[in-house]
Structures are given as structure tokens and as C-alpha cells.
């Protein structure tokens, strides 16, 4: 274990124009309860906004919550920005309405953890603990 006293900092962002934030807010609460420090961006985040928030907040984990189907184009853009802004080594996860055929594509883009509808809070928390760098 290389964990310092500092809590793991997680950014939860709601990408794109969709406003269904039930899932994002529930995950924020679950991660806070699990002992993480969580920053929630609110709605309508562009890839640029997510990247800027991640840099500014010095987070260890970038989490996206997606419901309405625009996750692939969004993640493709964010991947480029993360690389350009020194965020390549951050743990990158996504949850929400993510069709199974898209999971391999998301991994190819660079996502480390994929938590489709029905994923358990405990699984998200332990994935972060085991994989954060």
C-alpha cells in the first residue's frame, strides 16, 4: 500500500447536454461515504471543461456519467486533451447507459473502468482503490 494520508480525489463530471444527473449524484454520495474526496462538476460539461477541472483540482481519478448516448465522441475528444494536459496517468472511469458493444471501443480510447447501469457502489470504490496511481 502506498496510500498517504491524503484522500484519493475523484472528479465526477456529467458530459454533454443531457441533464439526467440522478446517477452522477448518487455515485458522488456513494464515493464520499466510501472515503474519497469528490468534486462534482454539474451538468453540460465539454471535454475542455472536464480537462480543466481535473487539472485545477489535482484529481487522481476522472469519472464520467453518461446517459443519453454521446459517450464515444465525448471520450475521443477528452482522450486527446488528457494526453496534452499531462493527465494520461490518471485513472479514467465511466458509468451509465453504456451499450455492451461500446465497451471495447471505450477501452481502446483509454478508459480504465466501465460501470454500466447496475454496477455496484462497492465495485466502483474498490476498482478505484486498486487501480489508482
Amino acid at each position, binding site marked *: 500500500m502506498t496510500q498517504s494520508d491524503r484522500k484519493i480525489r475523484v472528479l465526477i463530471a456529467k458530459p454533454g447536454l*443531457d*441533464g*439526467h444527473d440522478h446517477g452522477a*449524484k448518487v455515485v458522488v*454520495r456513494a464515493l464520499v461515504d466510501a472515503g474519497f474526496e469528490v468534486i462534482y462538476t454539474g451538468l453540460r460539461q465539454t471535454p475542455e471543461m472536464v480537462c480543466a477541472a481535473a487539472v485545477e483540482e489535482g484529481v487522481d481519478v476522472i469519472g464520467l456519467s453518461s446517459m*443519453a448516448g454521446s459517450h464515444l465522441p465525448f471520450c475521443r475528444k477528452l482522450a486527446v486533451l488528457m494526453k496534452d494536459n499531462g493527465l494520461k496517468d490518471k485513472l479514467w472511469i465511466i458509468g451509465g447507459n453504456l*451499450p455492451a458493444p461500446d465497451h471495447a471501443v471505450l477501452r481502446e480510447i483509454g478508459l480504465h473502468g466501465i460501470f454500466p447501469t447496475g454496477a455496484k*457502489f462497492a465495485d466502483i470504490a474498490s476498482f478505484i482503490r486498486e487501480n489508482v496511481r
Partner: protein
Amino acid sequence: MTAEKPSLRRVINESGIEIKPLYTQDDVIASGGTEMIGLPGEYPFTRGIHPTMYRKQPWTMRQYAGFGNPQDTNNRFKFLIDNGQTGLNVAFDLPSQIGLDSDDPAAEGEVGRVGMSVDTLADMEIAFAGIDLEKITVSLTINGSATVMIAMYLAMAEKRGYDISKLRGTAQNDILKEFIGRGTWIFPVDASIKLVADTVEYCAKHAPKYSPVSVCGYHIRDSGADPVQEMAYAFNIACAYIDSALARGLDIDEFAGRLSFNFNIFGNLFEQVAKFRAARGLWAKIVKERYHPKKPSSMGLRMIAGGGGGGLTFEQPENNIVRTAYYALISALSGTQTMALCSYDEAYTIPTEYSARISLRTMQILIEEMGLADTVDPLAGSYYVETLTNQMRQKMVEAMDDVDARGGIVKLVAEGWIQAQVSSQAYNMAKKLESGEFRKVGFNCYRVEEEEKQVEFHPYDESDARRQIDSLNAVRARRDKAQVDAALARIEADARAEVNVMPAIMEAVKTYATVGEITKTLVNVYGRYREPIRF
């Protein structure tokens, strides 16, 4: 042997009411008696807002539909009408819902994705081509940009020769709930309510048969609220709109009869039926005691129900066919005016023609085979249902009073207090679902090893966006730019003068001004909403 009697497990419904194993007349009396039951079509309307309900006319079947460009959506509308659907319920894409043109950089990847794309009046004309707007009433699921879309719809109807003073139809146009759940807000809270009042006033004067607002408990519930919060917050919101319309000098009877409501249906069958029966009586009482209408119809709770995507599961999607059939049954037992039944694949994707037709057939089976349209309020007089109806009504009153005591719904939404209540409730429920304390078949019990999902995904056609942008550019090229600019200038002037902007928006959409242009003009005056992040 002196074995102890096995103790029964405790049952507490989602609204926090403990359910007894047996109900008798004593429970009805203890919970408040039979005073609020009455007769259908009469105050307090607990049993229904019409005397004969479905015997005269079954509920309107109004499936939520729309995707791609307006032509794709027009084709789906015609498919649904050909299959016996009796109303339309329009889904707009996200750029249209938040006032962005299809070629706005922020709209990239979202054009036509979750609904149809509408940039100008030309799109509205294509979407409804060949559909008789007197026979088929249209509900527009639109909120942030509702002023523009209502104007485009009315202008389209006028162009086709309909008399808008006789035109029926509905716009969702409930912006306060967008701040709580769903999130398609544009302007700050106060300006948003001002715009709702503009539409109510405009319709009262020019399109008195049109329902300019459908107040939604639905999305508040889908965001995690319990059934009591769903109804209470919706009624708090409805009162806020009524107050703002009355402040314009309108008479309650000029518009209250055209207010409608949109509620969620998932959950326990008896709790849901009691919720609606309680809500009808409570709403009538509120309108009567606070606003003193002369017309009885001003007190009737007109509603759409049947959607309940939040109750469907991703796991074992075919089970959702069964769930939605029960949702339809609940809606029918609850005396809804309109049903928009969710489709079994909605936990995944936009419904296919196949799944949308199953939902339609579900409702038709209830009417044609199961006798749900034969008699009014068939659960009335059940000791259990009447007791629960009384108890739910009492809880709704308490929740509404709590909001008022804390400063009222408008203040609490602006501060994010309501949002925090709802997401806290959502988290509690999520934990109960994870622990199995609250049972969900296929999710936390009776699971099967996941096989390859059988659901067919609605494909997103990237070329639709290209075609939509081309057609937007073609409209821009052929319209009179000077006319558009003058119309936009009038909107800005009227907004600054704090007068009703609907007449100016009506004029602007007829010049083929775009939703993006009109929205930007209003943002120049009102600014944009900033979301309070509060947990």
C-alpha cells in the same frame, strides 16, 4: 408446545406508510373517513375528473416519440397513428431543448440523438405534414426553449389553416422541474418563471384550448423522489405558476382548466393508485381554497401517466414488458386522461417500432379485453385503497407545507435545496436496492447469468446531423435577413421592457428565425442559469 406465533414481516411502502395485513372500515374512518371520496366529475374529484370517464372515451394513447430529423420523426408518428395511437408526444433532441442550432459547436454529436431536431418553423412543418391536428392532439415535450417551440407549433398550425383559438394540444413547459431533474434549463430561475407566465397569458388570450403547461412530478420522481415528494413538489410548482399568472391580472378560470400534469407510475400498485386518487382531491381543495375559481373544471387534475422508465431494469429486459403492462393497469385504475406508456427497451435505447407497438397493444388489450374502460374508479370503496388514499393525501399536505415553511419552492429550487433532498432520497433508495432491502426482480433477486442482451439498439445516424445542418443553411439562405433581424430586435426590446415576449417570438418564428437566434437574444437580456452544486 408453546411455539410463538410467527411474526409477520413489517411492510412499509415507499412513502413511509406502514401497511397492515388487513384493512377494515375502521381503518378508513381512523384515516379521515369517506368525506373526500365523492362522485366522479364533482368536487373533490377524487374518483375522477369526468362523470363517466373511460366509458365515454378511453384514455388518449400518446407514446413519446421522435428522433433524427423531422422527416424521420414524421414517419414514426404516422406509424404510431396507423397502429391506433390517438395523440402524439414529441421528443426533441437536446440542442433543440436547450436552444442551440444544429450547427452550434456545442451540439456536435447530439443532433437528432434523443429526439427530433428542430431549428426553424420549416422543421415543424415537415414533422407534422399530413397529420390532422384537430383529430390528433400534439404534446410537445419541451421546456427550456418552450416559448420558441410553442410559437413554432402555433405558427405551423396557423399556416396550415387551423384556427389557433380552437386548437388543442399541450406543451410540457415546466421549467422548475428541469432545475430539479432532467436539466434542460437555459435562463435563471426568475426569468424562466416569467417566460412560463408569458406562455400562459398568451395562450389564455389567443389559444384558450391549448394547454401551455404540464406540471411534472414525473421527472422529480425519476430523479429519486418518493411518491409523496413527487406530488407535493409538483403542486408547489403548479401554485408558483398560478401565482405568476394571477400577478399578470389573469383570472383563475381563464387558465386553470388548461393546466395539466405529468406523473410517474412505477412502484407499488396500490400506493400508486392511492397517490393519484389522493392527489386529485388535494389539488381540487388547493385550487378551491387558495384561488376561489367559479368553474369546477378549474379544480380538475388533468394528467398524463404511464411513463416510468425509472422502474425498468437493464437486467432481463423482457421483464420490462410485464412491468409496463402493470404500469398501464395502474394508470387505468388511477383514472389518467392520457397514457404515454414506456417501452420495454427504454432502459437501453430509443424504442424500436416493434417495442413501441407492444406498448400500444398493451393499452389496447386493457381497453378491449380486460374491461378497464367499463366503469369509473373501480378500486373505490376498498378499505385498503381508501385508507391509503387518505394517508397519502395527508403526507402530501405535510410535504407541501414543509416547502412553504422553508421559504417556498422557487427559493428552494434556486438554492438547490429541493435538488439535494431528491438526490439524498435517490441515494437511500440505491442503497436499499444494493442491499436487497428493496426488491427488484432481475437486479437484486432472481438474477440469471447475463447472456448476450436481446435488445436491438436504435442506431444513431451521424449523417442525419449533416442533413439537418444542410437544411438549416438552406432555410437561412432563402429567408429575408432584414425581417429576421427586426423580429429579433423586437424580442430583445420586449424582454428588456419586461412585457410578454410571446407576440414577438410568434413574429420571429414566422420569419424563420432559428431557435438558437431567439434563445441567444433572450440570453442577452436574462443571462444564463448557474447550477448550485449542493449535497
